[in-house]
């Protein structure tokens, strides 16, 4: 977007990074304590860990690239 201060991608980065940290953190706890929700399938894949990491890394990329004050080419 042009001429409107903070980019929408920064907002998206913030929320993805926040979600990523929360979900990954819970996934690690779940893995360590083996306290898997009983009715959920494929828990052996540790989905919260890798999906949370994907969200977090994507969010971090957007936060850094579109942080306020940084000129975006």
């Amino acid at each position: 977007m042009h001429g409107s201060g903070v980019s929408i991608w920064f907002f998206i980065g913030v929320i993805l990074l926040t979600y990523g940290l929360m979900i990954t953190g819970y996934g690690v706890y779940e893995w360590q304590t083996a306290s898997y929700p009983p009715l959920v399938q494929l828990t052996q894949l540790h989905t919260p860990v890798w999906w949370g990491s994907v969200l977090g890394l994507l969010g971090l990329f957007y936060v850094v690239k579109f942080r306020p004050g940084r000129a975006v080419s």
Partner: protein
Amino acid sequence: MFGFVPASHAADSLGTLPALLAFSTEPLAHLRLLDLFIIGIYFAMVIWIGFYLKGRSNTGEEFFMAGREMTAWIAGLSFVSANLGSLELMGWAGSAYQYGILATHWYWIGAIPAMIFLGLVMMPFYYVCKTHSVPGYLDLRYGGGARTVAAISFATEMILMSGVNMFAMAVVMKVVLGWDITFSIFVSSIAVAVYVGLGGLRSAIFNEVLQFVLIWGGALLVPILGMIQAGGIGGLKSKIIANMHSDSYFHMWRDTGHFAANPMGVHWTGIVFGLGFVISFGYWTTDFLVVQRVLAAHNLRAARMAPIIGSFFKMATPFIVILPGLLGLVLLQNPDGSRRQLVGEDVVAACTVSPASGRIENSAACSAEMATTTLPAAYQQKVLSGAPGAELHSYNQALPLMMVRYLGPGLLGLGITALIAGFMSGMAGNVSAFSTVWTYDIYRPLINKHGSDSHYVLVGRLSILIGVAVSIGAAYLVMHAHGIMDYVQALFSIFVAPLLATILFGMFWKRATTMAGFLGLLLGIVFSASLFMWVKLVPAALADVALSPDAKPMAENVYRALWAFLFASIVIFVVSLLTKAKPVAELDGLVYGATVLPVEAPVPFYKNEYTWAIVVVVIFAALNIIFW
């Protein structure tokens, strides 16, 4: 709206949603604290964006058109997001469960050609004439009569649809999470009113892009994990054939040679001409809800690229909508491990469990309804006897059931956030488009012609609040009179075909006259509404409208739209020949052949809209051949 595919397309599967209110059962999912935090953060973010953008929405151009400074990517994502509602996600996942991959037509031929046409052919005219809205274009081309008819019909449709969607969302939240209906309606509508009222279209667009990312982030895991468990596409196919004893679930065109040959009861002519042309072009090229997003682009090239960018994501959407429905066919299980079969909402409602006794209220009605399904007799007996775990779930619950199957704490909150985001993006689209049309196409020309720019911005903000309030009223109206839902959902399909004819003739035929535009639109709407009422009052008339005794209700929308388009076209053509056309000089910027389009600066081929349009067309053709 349910997004587009527009709400009306999903009406057949979703029109009976209110019946679920009568069905007393445990919610499908229970959220934990982590999930509630994730949902809470989402609401905080959308409100924050609204407050942040308030200072950049002071002029009419900023408030109603987002300053016309969106990039192609943002306009393109907003363009598809305004349409990617949760009812669409759930409704079409349910349709895929019922009909297989045939449901994908509403994403591919029902969208892609029209999006390309909008970008490459129509956008220059919308953009060059600097109109604020689609009714505004009709005003410039045909005068105030056509504008007023289009504006009033569109504003009415938007506000009622917003109410219906609000109610439908609340029903879904009650069924999935057990949330109170009033709580869901007020929380979501107040949030939308705050962020759109503060930041205008810019805020709506920003949030739609955010919502788009969250919808994908929340919904994408279901098909990924489902495919892993099903053993890939090969495993899915073999399991479906084994369970359903038919491979028609994987064919989009092969069985459309006759109405009776496919479960949807549609014929390829209806799909190509009714859906692929009239309804799809009507929605994607003339519905201001989506066109408004593209008009906010910062230059003509961005405005042309936006629908083309959007078309890539539209083509990919079946991955998070259709595939979960297909996976649900083979993966969903009852507590005893047997395959879970979903049923229609009417069956679920007929088997309402009494909260007091815990037993079916009307066993005879329930038994009769279940007899029309393929549920095993033993399972039907279990349901009737109230055996533990013997529950009935509807087709529309396919996606939430798949979410509950794979998403644990945190991820489930993200999935539910995706559903809420989908609802809110659709609702925000409705109210922002309503606000613009009300202010510029109804209030300014008909009520107060000489207000200042700041006055119109104030009217716009107030109209958002009033619009949301009316929507809430409509939601409660639908709650107490379910039959109204059918009529409201039909509004889109009644208006769209005559509007498409009026705009196409106006944009591509210099001879089309002011009177022809007005009469074509007005009489076309009357004709279309009459066809709708005819079938409503005399259901057997469906065979006449759709030209086959084997046609099913899904075919009615597409054929009604086709006849209404032809009728409006004939009216416009004949009346134009009988009345005096405008001088060509007055059509500059409005009509093909009378407009000198601005020359765009040359760009490398990989930034050219035609290059990407060709890529879209090739992928579109390949997908249709692969899934023939």
